């Protein structure tokens, strides 16, 4: 079995700061990480490989420094890493990104064997769009299973997979055919950190690096900024709220003082809360 996992190297958004005067992003010193949701996808892929045999290839598109994230994925146990990097990919929106990634997945299939499953995380923590997984699926003509909480069954002989997919109010149990694309929800199982053998192998492993041309991109105008139908016209800081919070002094009965202040601000609140508390 061959599984391809698409990952993204993202800035650790918890550590991003905005310059207080210029309202620009201060990138210096912000560490990069593998998008946390992609780790759930990687874990799901590795678990399937361990059970059914085969190989896991990790793929990312990004600047040359994104190779760091691929090496990390190798230390976690991935078998092979492919970096898609080219100046022509710069500035891609989700549509252009899916064009490049789908091309690379096709090339991976031609070079290392056709994938049975392509995995991605449910979304990234920097873009948050959840659009790239479905886009890759559509480009490759794969069936898509998004927001998958659990892979319940995989039958390689029958080329069939059964999953539990998150939807409003519950889980949809779906069955579809391989090959397919799966985007993983946060998993309940722990993400492995790899063995010493994995770490040694990763240290020696070569990250396969492809330019647009080598990856087989046919139409460069579909990549990067040129291939992006959306354009960012304006970036700005959210306007600050005019007034700061009215601070209640924490005296002898701070809870009552706080409640009094709430009810003073919103006179209807007391009766609304009473109705809710009675279960209406």
């Amino acid at each position: 079995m061959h599984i391809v996992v698409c990952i993204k190297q993202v800035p650790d958004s918890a550590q991003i700061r905005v310059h207080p005067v210029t309202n620009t992003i201060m990138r210096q010193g912000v560490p990069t990480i593998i998008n946390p949701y992609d780790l759930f996808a990687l874990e799901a892929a590795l678990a399937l490989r361990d059970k059914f045999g085969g190989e896991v290839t990790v793929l990312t598109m990004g600047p040359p420094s994104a190779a760091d994230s691929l090496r990390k994925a190798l230390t976690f146990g991935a078998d092979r890493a492919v970096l898609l990097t080219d100046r022509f990919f710069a500035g891609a929106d989700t549509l252009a990104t899916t064009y490049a990634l789908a091309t690379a997945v096709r090339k991976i299939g031609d070079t290392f064997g056709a994938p049975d499953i392509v995995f991605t995380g449910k979304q990234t923590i920097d873009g948050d769009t959840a659009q790239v997984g479905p886009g890759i699926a559509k480009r490759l003509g794969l069936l898509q299973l998004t927001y998958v909480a659990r892979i319940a069954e995989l039958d390689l002989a029958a080329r069939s997979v059964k999953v539990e997919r998150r939807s409003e109010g519950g889980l949809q149990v779906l069955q579809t055919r391989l090959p397919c694309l799966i985007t993983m929800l946060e998993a309940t199982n722990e993400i492995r950190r790899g063995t010493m053998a994995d770490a040694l192998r990763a240290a020696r492993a070569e990250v396969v690096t492809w330019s647009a041309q080598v990856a087989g991109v046919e139409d460069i105008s579909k990549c990067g900024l040129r291939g992006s139908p959306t354009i960012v016209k304006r970036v700005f800081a959210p306007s600050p709220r005019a007034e700061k919070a009215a601070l209640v002094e924490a005296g002898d009965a701070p809870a009552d003082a706080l409640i009094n202040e709430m009810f003073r601000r919103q006179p209807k609140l007391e009766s609304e809360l009473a109705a809710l508390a009675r279960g209406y």
Partner: protein
Amino acid sequence: MSEPNKSEPTKAPAAANSRAATKKELPEHFKGYKHVWVFVEQERGHVHPVSWELMGAGRKLADKLKVDLAAVVIGPTGAATEQAAAEAFCYGADLAYVVADDLLTHYRNEAYTKALTDVVNTYKPEILLLGATTLGRDLAGSVATTLLTGLTADCTELDVDADGSLAATRPTFGGSLLCTIYTLNYRPQMATVRPRVMAMPDREARPAGRIINHPLGLIEDDIVTKVLSFLPDRDSAKSNLAYADVVVAGGLGLGSPENFQLVRQLASVLGAEFGCSRPLVQKGWVTSDRQIGQTGKTIRPKLYIAAGISGAIQHRVGVEGADLIVAINTDKNAPIFEFAHVGIVTDAIRLLPALTEAFRARLSPHSRDRIAS
């Protein structure tokens, strides 16, 4: 691999920078695209409220463009789908496109993508809005890629500018900045919006308007994916964070996972939902369906109580629509006091039990009778 969103595009060479998308004149074949559409999302017979929230936003866009607002209703034949279309008129739709087929009983990407793509290609909307739900995002990504058009995710503001283009504003960099995104040379212009980001418009009882039925054009054998069953959430009746009237949430200031119980107790006394900030999910103290903020849920309650939450911009984005924000934090310089309405500088671990007792005493029917008499 950046997203609309474009994280690091600045060093692209001049050639790659010549954006086709910035050309001013719309290509000839897109000139027939008119009207604003809202995808009405229904699952298991229920319309997701985000559809009506979008109808409110869509109405304003349509009025500004002086075009019709249409609903797109996709679902099984029968009462639920007809009812969804009828409701769409009550929330401001001028007409409704309906694809009704029993193959659409359960959401399946293949069938819904075909249905929506076909209707778009036939009737050509200029703007197409969907809810940023699990269903909406699954569908929007497929449809936009099939149509090779732009899709802007999780917008917080929608407007049309002077030349009639959709200006879609969304948070970027974890909510620390906003960006306005355009899809100039492609149609339709597509956007998703999370539940509770737009205000719910008033419902007006109105007779059903013009309905245009469109065939699905598939048979079951065409659809590979099968829905085997549905496992409802155990507490699905209670898990209603986005639409709760009162929400109590905790953050790292609670110190330990055991102390999160204090948040749940106060929520219970108030008949409220409980939530948390992102770090608690990352630490595994609380499950992610309770996360409030840019990567979690957007809430719009009448009352929001934040206990031990510092109020990073990520969190702020998710709670700004609350009528009354109350913050409890030991650090008087915590950013949450910048956007809360009422604050108290104290340790939430000590205040929460007292607050729970005080509310219990005030809100009991007995004390209400006393106040009334």
